[in-house]
């Protein structure tokens, strides 16, 4: 049985802001039923440009539902620029942490937020413009780069836990390792 925090259980059993907003200012659909989790996220701004309301619908496990519920609570009252700074780690931290193998649920929340903001600005989502590395789970190189960089990941297994990439056929493991090596060497240079 998963070791979920009380906060995860609470957001799973009593999810906040379930549903779809009509005429949203930003919307995103990420994941798919085949991948095992998917999230539709919508938000609406008030006249001052702050996020007035956010809603979600999730297909997925308890931590996927809890992550999406947490995200909708976290963004309310923020400007788009402020919301943009929320990382997957912030979502996990809001929930008191997630099991390692479930970190990808927080990454999906972050991805939905990013895609919804791109949709609001009328620009293509960064995730859509990048090439797929993991075809089994539809994960792009940029998403992997971001997860490695923000979470200081060092192994393919960790990358799989955070992004799902590499969790299927395994043919992308070498590419993932390459991304890890590159990001880590870049970070060493900048640090």
């Amino acid at each position, binding site marked *: 049985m998963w070791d979920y925090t009380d906060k995860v259980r609470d957001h799973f059993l009593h999810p906040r802001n379930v549903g779809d907003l009509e005429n949203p200012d930003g919307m995103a659909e990420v994941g798919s*039923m*085949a991948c*095992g989790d998917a999230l539709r996220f919508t938000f609406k701004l008030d006249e001052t440009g702050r996020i007035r309301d956010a809603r979600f*619908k999730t*297909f997925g*496990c308890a931590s996927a539902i809890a992550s999406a519920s947490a995200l909708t609570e976290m963004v309310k009252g923020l400007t788009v620029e402020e919301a943009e700074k929320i990382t997957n780690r912030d979502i996990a931290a809001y929930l008191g942490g997630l099991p390692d*193998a479930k970190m990808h649920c927080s990454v999906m929340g972050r991805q939905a937020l990013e895609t919804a903001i791109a949709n609001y600005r009328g620009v293509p989502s960064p995730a859509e413009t990048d090439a797929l590395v993991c075809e089994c789970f539809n994960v792009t190189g940029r998403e992997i780069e971001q997860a490695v960089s923000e979470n200081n990941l060092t192994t393919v297994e960790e990358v799989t836990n955070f992004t*799902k990439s590499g969790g299927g056929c395994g043919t992308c493991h070498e590419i993932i390792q390459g991304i890890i090596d590159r990001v880590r060497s870049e970070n060493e240079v900048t640090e």
Partner: protein
Amino acid sequence: MNAVYLDNNATTRIAPEVLDAMMPYLTGYYGNPSSMHSFGGRVAPVVEEARGQVARLIGASPDEIIFTSCGTESDNTAIRSALAVNPDKRHIVTSRVEHPAVRELCLFLARNGYRVTEVPVDSKGRLDMDACRESLTDDTALVTLMWANNETGVIFPVEEAAGIARERGIPVHTDAVQAVGKVPIDVDSSGVDMLSLSGHKLHAPKGIGVLYVRKGTRFAPFLIGGHQESERRAGTENVPYIAGLGKACELALEHLPDMNGRVRRLRDKLEREITARIPHVKINGDTENRLPNTANISFEYVEGESILLMMNEYGICASSGSACTSGSLQPSHVMLAMGVPFTMAHGSIRFSLSIYSEEAEIDFVVDKLVDIITTLRAMSPFWNNDSRPAAGR
């Protein structure tokens, strides 16, 4: 809150009669059956009585019964023995849907110089008998096929497969851990050479198993040491657990009619009510040839772990073939082998009943499931508010 325990393919409660049968050997009668003194010697007949009780349940003779520590040990012993007595043969035939106790060992052997053929199953989980027949070669050391599948309950035609293999002189092992005690088994007429069973699946404790080895089968022990079990399995006999398993087998034989009558009807009611009251569900597996206690049901547009955790709030215990419950990202290998679409496999739930299951529990589970699936679908982006699947995607 009382648990509604519908996860009996995972493990079962210890029957009160079994615990009673064990207690003397956990307390006062702690002797070693191999000892020369009568304090130890008096427990030796207990082991032999249990051997007889196990043999009767599966139609074996007592000297064909070897006590082990669990089903996995029995499986490992059988497969490694078949390879050890036939060192020139390097090929194993098994199926794609075996329990990890067989499958992972075969994959390990495949990485260590053996050739392994995993016979496919169809969309109902039925073994491809033609593929099984065609896979046999002069190099085949063993055919190992499960009697019944732990996830779907689908029963393989092991006897037919054994007939084909034996014609070619190839030994046959069956992992019957899920089948023993649920359906009648007669090893003598089945044609199998070795059969594994596990105590904790039939109301004995965890930590006791059996390997049946047909008389005359060439055998190489797995544990080397003392002369216990006629030099076929070293290690001091686990007397209390052996006594418990013997009692459990005696009870299982008595309860076979209840299992195949009342319990089967409860399982059928569970499936009937769920399919009647919840749209977009599918029963997985061959409903013609199936264990009487097992139901594997896919709930479309929702995910299995969420269903399990919501049922958990009501004390309902079951399992899922969803990826999320295992920590792996792939749905169960059984669902994948059957070609169940990912979208269905992620929402698959296994309910497994026992002779202790009651009708009121089934009614309770159905009522709660209706609410749970409604709640989760209302949260699902693939489900519309007017109770229909969403278009597209």
